[in-house]
């Protein structure tokens, strides 16, 4: 693969060099010119990437890193030059240019708190000004973020910058990603992944790619119905290539995207070329990924000197820490290990080179990137090569073409590949200190006290993903006169993966022949999933102003998309040799082949009318018609309407409130959908092995010809406000969604002989919440400024209707989804009611069992105890709490010094309301490495432990609230006097740290079991549990960026 990477890098750099050679010829055009610099009126700093243009001539370009611009071939005469930049007030200036003259004109622009003139990608041609949109749309200035702080993935990019957006942080396994939810969970069975568009085309939004990792029950199913991994393909994109990201948050805003848009839309806009000489940007990022305090995350572990079984006499207890013990074993050479300690500082590096430039007719942005992320175990790494080429061609005043293309190629080796158990972390957490003495009775002398595998056993298993992906789009814009703007977008996103999990032939010496519980002679799981999304989008906007104060925009369009998934997967058992590493080295009769092929097509049309009054009041109405190949034959096409209104009231002449200098109110109502799974409408039969080697059939899933999409209806209302001359600004939005026709799996009476269940549109989940952000410029002068940004959101949901569906498990009317529950409730006075999470737990019950005659110590059983009086609430379990965070807050102070050359910043994030689970606590009875479980002298623990066997899972639940320091860093822009000798235009050095400190966590222990991290592991929405995955990692990086 690396040979291929080198080749691709060489080719890319060759193209870059060619552009460098030829571009100056293009820019040497005839005519007058206007040049100058654009600076921030408050800081005096140059403003890069500002649009400088003469609207009537359709002539313009972007400022360079040093704020300079150059407009060539400007006709003689007086022109109005406009400067626009996201986040700044639009500034215009009249310039008169003489024949052959080069006019110098500098601009000072002022930062705008609310950015109401910012152009938002809404699904209609050309985008829409923010002031005209009735919904809240969060825009992340990705280019600014990457310039300031090291960004390794999308989670780094968006966390703490987008209220209403949640990540499920699964693990510290480098190469894995996080699923994204916008405004919470509104579906029982369908994905809550938002739609993702890159440069206007729809792309694969799967968050379960890669091989199956870790404990099998942690794994969510992919769309083929088979288990998937923990990779988010969103991380395929290079953050350095992204100009901005727009988060469209709910059905009211996403109506124009139709079916599948209920969960929101993420628009990624990559960097584009701009007129001017080539401008190169090179950046080098170096750093480490590491686990903070691994020994402390395990906590003090307890074991008994006299027995591996409990209870233990207090006098026989001793303490140890298995992480420290592992390091001792490594020093002693007890097992092979390629780093000095069990967990290393994984090196992290990234190299980016990009160039942008062009003429008035052709503009380009080219980039290449190589990234190498190392995990804390030596064999965990993710190496990625990416390249991008974006070209814009201006054919005429009315026709332009934007071509965007990206390619990624990479290889990941994961950290936790043991199929039926966890990996290294589990073997630490469930160590038994009694067996540190390998001569102890019953000891497996090769394990040294590790629970089931040596770390080197786990390292010998290879779980890998090799991936390639192409994403490309072509956008043809046509502006007919000034009233018709139409656009055609063609897109292709295609990814090819090779996933492997190999358990080598690795017998242990007698008498313990098995290293892995799964296999002695080896297994291999080899798959080649291919995912493809093709899209075609036509849309047009007719702009008409019948009266000077009235602006009408009629938009209409059609979108067609096809999504295809294909995977040929082979699983083999029994290698021919200990050296065997491929599927052809297992016997044919022990091969299992599975083949999945899924195709889905959707077609939608929309019509939208926007009425603008004096550029202040906007009313928008739209309707979208959708049909989808997954809809049942008896289901008609879906219709999604929307209405919205927004009013910039502060621009009215009657507005006399000087305190509030900007105020916009807005509201929206709309619908969007989620499509059922591809096969939901069809009875399917699977092939099973028949007698005598024949093929046989078995019904695999019944279909529902009436199945349709889930339909989400949302209203939202809010305001954007700036006060004290933009010194304080913010926005607030309240939303409420009714997610009707939620699909639930309605089973059949088994006696009908139809296995499985049909998806039926019978449920409803309501989701509600609010989102707020507030930016305060606490102090600022020419040399020094200090500002703080606050963000917060609240998201909750409730199951409100199940129609004919019989409540089961967590699907109960009145409950949030997903939720933690218990069936039993203690009634004894000694266990007072109250908080059910964590310690003390009062939601448990146990009838007890007699101590007398119970002699099960040899098999690990505990003696009996006094029964805990309780009630069995039967089929209506008691709610403990939601298994998702309901409140998220962030605080991000920024201190700017030395005329803004030096920025020091931090971001802390707090998450609240989630009932989290720590499975290691649940299993603490068997893996007795805590004081309580060794002594067995805690009545609550005993009751909770026994309850584990009667569907009472409260022993594992805890209060998952926490505050973490997400980002901490500084960025220094070298002054021109320093970098002048280098010939560079600008140079900056950034140092940043991420997740380096947990500031506070509500609960650190459950019955003596250390909670290794409060954040990771969501049991039902993305897998999890806290023993089979690495805790999330921290990182420390330094980035040098040069523009020349």
């Amino acid at each position, binding site marked *: 693969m690396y040979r291929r990477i080198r080749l691709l890098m060489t080719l890319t750099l060759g193209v870059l060099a060619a552009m460098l050679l030829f571009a100056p010829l293009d820019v040497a055009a005839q005519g007058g010119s206007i040049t100058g610099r654009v600076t921030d009126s408050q800081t005096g700093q140059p403003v890069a990437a500002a649009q400088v243009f003469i609207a009537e001539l359709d002539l313009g370009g972007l400022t360079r890193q040093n704020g300079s611009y150059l407009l060539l071939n400007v006709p003689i005469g007086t022109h109005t030059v406009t400067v626009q930049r996201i986040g700044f007030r639009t500034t215009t200036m009249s310039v008169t240019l003489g024949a052959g003259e080069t006019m110098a004109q500098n601009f000072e622009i002022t930062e705008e708190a609310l950015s109401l003139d910012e152009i938002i990608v809404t699904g209609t041609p050309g985008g829409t000004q923010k002031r005209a949109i009735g919904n809240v749309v969060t825009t992340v200035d990705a280019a600014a973020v990457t310039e300031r702080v090291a960004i390794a993935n999308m989670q780094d990019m968006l966390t703490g910058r987008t209220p209403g957006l949640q990540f499920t942080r699964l693990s510290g396994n480098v190469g894995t990603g996080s699923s994204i939810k916008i405004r919470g969970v509104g579906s029982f069975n369908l994905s809550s992944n938002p739609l993702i568009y890159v440069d206007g085309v729809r792309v694969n939004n799967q968050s379960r790619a890669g091989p199956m990792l870790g404990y099998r029950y942690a794994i969510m199913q992919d769309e083929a119905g088979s288990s998937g991994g923990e990779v988010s393909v969103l991380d395929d994109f290079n953050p350095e290539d992204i100009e901005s990201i727009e988060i469209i948050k709910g059905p009211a805003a996403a109506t124009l995207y139709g079916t599948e848009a209920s969960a929101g839309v993420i628009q990624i806009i990559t960097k584009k070329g701009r007129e001017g000489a080539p401008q190169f940007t090179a950046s080098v990022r170096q750093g480490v990924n590491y686990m903070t305090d691994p020994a402390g995350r395990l906590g003090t572990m307890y074991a008994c000197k006299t027995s591996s079984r409990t209870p233990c006499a207090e006098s026989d207890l001793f303490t140890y820490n298995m992480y420290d013990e592992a390091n001792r074993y490594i020093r002693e050479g007890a097992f092979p290990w390629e780093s000095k300690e069990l967990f290393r500082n994984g090196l992290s590096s990234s190299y980016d080179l990009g160039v942008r430039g062009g003429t008035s007719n052709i503009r380009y942005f080219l980039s290449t990137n190589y990234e190498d992320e190392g995990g804390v175990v030596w064999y965990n790494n993710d190496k990625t090569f990416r390249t991008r080429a974006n070209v814009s061609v201006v054919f005429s005043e009315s026709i332009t073409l934007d071509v965007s293309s990206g390619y990624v190629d990479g290889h990941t080796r994961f950290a936790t590949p043991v199929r039926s158990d966890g990996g290294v972390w589990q073997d630490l957490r469930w160590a038994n200190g009694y067996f540190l003495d390998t001569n102890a009775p019953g*000891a497996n002398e090769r394990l040294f006290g590790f629970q089931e595998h040596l770390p080197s056993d786990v390292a010998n298993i290879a779980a890998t993903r090799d991936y390639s992906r192409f994403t490309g789009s072509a956008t043809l814009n046509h502006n007919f006169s000034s009233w018709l703007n139409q656009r055609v977008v063609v897109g292709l996103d295609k990814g090819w993966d090779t996933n492997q999990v190999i358990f080598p032939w690795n017998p242990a010496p007698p008498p313990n022949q098995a290293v892995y519980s799964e296999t002695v002679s080896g297994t291999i799981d080899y798959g080649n999933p291919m995912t493809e999304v093709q899209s075609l989008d036509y849309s047009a906007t007719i702009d008409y102003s019948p009266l000077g104060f009235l602006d009408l925009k009629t938009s209409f369009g059609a979108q067609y998309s096809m999504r295809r998934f294909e995977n040929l997967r082979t699983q083999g058992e029994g290698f021919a040799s200990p050296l065997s590493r491929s599927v052809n080295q297992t016997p044919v009769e022990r091969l299992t082949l599975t083949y999945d092929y899924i195709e889905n097509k959707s077609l939608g049309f929309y019509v939208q009318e926007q009425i603008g009054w004096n550029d202040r009041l906007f009313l928008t109405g739209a309707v979208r018609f959708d049909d989808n190949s997954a809809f049942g034959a008896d289901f008609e*096409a879906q219709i999604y309407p929307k209405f919205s209104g927004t009013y910039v009231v502060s621009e009215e002449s009657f507005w006399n409130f000087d305190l509030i200098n900007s105020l916009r109110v807005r509201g929206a109502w709309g619908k969007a959908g989620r499509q059922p799974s591809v096969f939901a409408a069809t009875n399917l039969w699977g092939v099973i092995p028949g007698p005598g080697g024949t093929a*046989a*059939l*078995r019904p695999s899933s019944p279909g529902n010809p009436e199945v349709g999409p889930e339909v989400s209806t949302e209203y939202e209302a809010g305001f954007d406000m700036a006060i004290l001359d933009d010194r304080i600004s913010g926005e607030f939005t309240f939303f409420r969604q009714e997610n009707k026709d939620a699909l639930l799996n309605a089973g059949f009476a*088994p*006696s009908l002989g139809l296995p499985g269940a049909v998806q039926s549109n019978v449920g409803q989940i309501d989701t509600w919440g609010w989102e707020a952000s507030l930016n305060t410029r606490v102090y600022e002068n020419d040399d020094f400024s200090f500002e703080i940004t606050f963000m917060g959101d609240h998201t909750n949901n409730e199951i409100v209707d199940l129609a004919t569906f019989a409540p089961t498990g967590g699907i109960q009317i009145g409950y949030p989804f997903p939720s933690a529950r218990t069936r039993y409730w203690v009634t004894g006075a000694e266990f007072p009611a109250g908080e059910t999470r964590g310690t003390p737990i009062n939601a448990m019950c146990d009838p007890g069992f007699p101590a007398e005659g119970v002699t099960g110590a040899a*098999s690990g059983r505990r003696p009996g105890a006094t029964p805990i009086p309780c009630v069995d609430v039967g089929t209506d379990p008691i709610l403990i709490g939601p298994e998702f965070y309901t409140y998220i807050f962030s605080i991000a102070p920024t201190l700017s010094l030395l005329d803004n050359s030096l920025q020091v910043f931090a971001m802390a994030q707090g998450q609240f309301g989630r009932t989290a689970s720590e499975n290691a606590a649940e299993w603490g009875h068997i893996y007795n490495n805590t004081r309580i479980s060794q002594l067995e002298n805690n009545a609550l623990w005993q009751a909770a432990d026994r309850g584990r066997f009667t569907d009472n899972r409260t022993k594992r639940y805890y209060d998952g609230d926490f505050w973490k320091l997400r980002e901490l860093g500084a960025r220094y822009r070298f002054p021109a006097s320093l970098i002048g000798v280098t010939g560079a235009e600008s140079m900056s050095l950034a140092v940043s740290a991420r997740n380096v400190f947990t500031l506070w966590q509500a609960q650190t222990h459950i019955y003596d079991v250390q909670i290794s991290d409060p954040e990771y592991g969501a049991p039902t929405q993305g897998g999890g549990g806290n023993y089979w995955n690495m805790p999330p990692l921290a990182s420390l990086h330094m980035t040098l960026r040069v523009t020349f």
Partner: protein
Amino acid sequence: MINIKRIAVGLSLVVALGAMGACEDLLDVDLPSALTDEALDAPEGAETQVNSVIALFECAYSTLAYQAAGHEDVWEKIAGVAGSAAQYDAWPDRGDCDSSPEDDDWYDNIQVGRALGVKTYARLGDWTDDEVDDRTKKQAIVALYIAANMDVLGEFFCEMAVDGGSLMSATETLNLGETWIATALGHISSLGDFEMPYGIASSATNMAVGLRARMKWSRGDLSGAMADANAVPARFTSWVIRGAGPQRRNKVYNTGTAVGYAGMLDVNDWWHEGPNPVTGQAWGSPIPFTGYLNLSLMADGRAVHASGLPVRASDAGSSLDSRVGHFIKTVQGPVPRDVPTKYTADSDNIPLVSWQELLLIKAEAQGGQAAIDLVNELRTFHGLPQVTYADAGNATEIRYMILEERRRELFLTSRWWASKIQNTDLLWFPRSTGFFPEQGYELNGGVRMVMPRSEYDLNENFTVDQRSTGCDVGQRPVIRS
């Protein structure tokens, strides 16, 4: 301009509506990996459907044999990180039993195979001899497998329903199975006896009659069972056949020997939770008729003591019983376990109708010296000591002898579970094993299963309150809601 705009908008709407009308073609998808109902419509696929009925039963029965081993006190399952017990359960697990070697699921495949069999039988009736080769033979085979499914549903459940219908008692279920046997025999007689395909049995007639003998025995018709057993020649066996390979799991083999998830147990000596629910008497300590480790025979053929405890290697003068072999194998965890040698490869077949069982049915039906002679016929076959100790006039001793002989002779074939259902006054049931005795604590008695909860919830003909009402007290499971 206004006109142009209106025209443009109007045209777009017309185009949009027109395109919506053409949606169906644009939205056609190609799904080559999926087979739909159409796959069953063509008579050319009749052979596949027959094979499907066989395969579904085989798959389920293989797993049932493993599940039954838990009911029979055979072993302790130590799979995974926690070690759940292969223990008695009140209801069967649903699902696709081939998904994993650890899965206990089998019930769906019994019902799916039965339902597919009924539909296939109907289709075969609709098709003609010109369309389907050996149509009558196929009808006979399908009917036979429908009956085999009904046998399982009748033998091990309190009550049963088929095709979403009303509750049937175990006897009614078995009777329905016997009607399918009659149907099969009708087709067989019209053709003449034939060999079952794939080495399943040398005679379709003997397989049908032997299966009917078992059904009759299960519903207490000993004389009828003996009559059918007598009609089946010696040494006849029909098999649940297993191909090698991971997709045709032999759960008994995999869990008991190959992967080693389960370890065999010694005579139970710790259960004191409750009395025998039928007799009200406390269980003995150790409990009789339990344990499979080191089972031995005395020189006089004695396999069981008067207490009901088996003869073990520790009994002086005994020799090991080769029918219940085991060996030490290291499995997951630090402690090596005893695993059975009953199946040595995952392609080993499981007996469905065995001459040994038919012999013991006859012994049970006749009792006395005839029973001793029939047991000795088995012993001779295996080269084991003849029974000389038994008093032919002592009914208890004869009963004990037959029970213990069934336990050993039919080891790991699901048949001992059926014996326990017939003898709840004497045989210990259920047991709870593994690391977690709590898992079995609520199961204080009862030997049959009930259907999965979903049947009671979703079948409009009865309610969940009727669970287990089809069982006698001694056979009724204790069900946690």
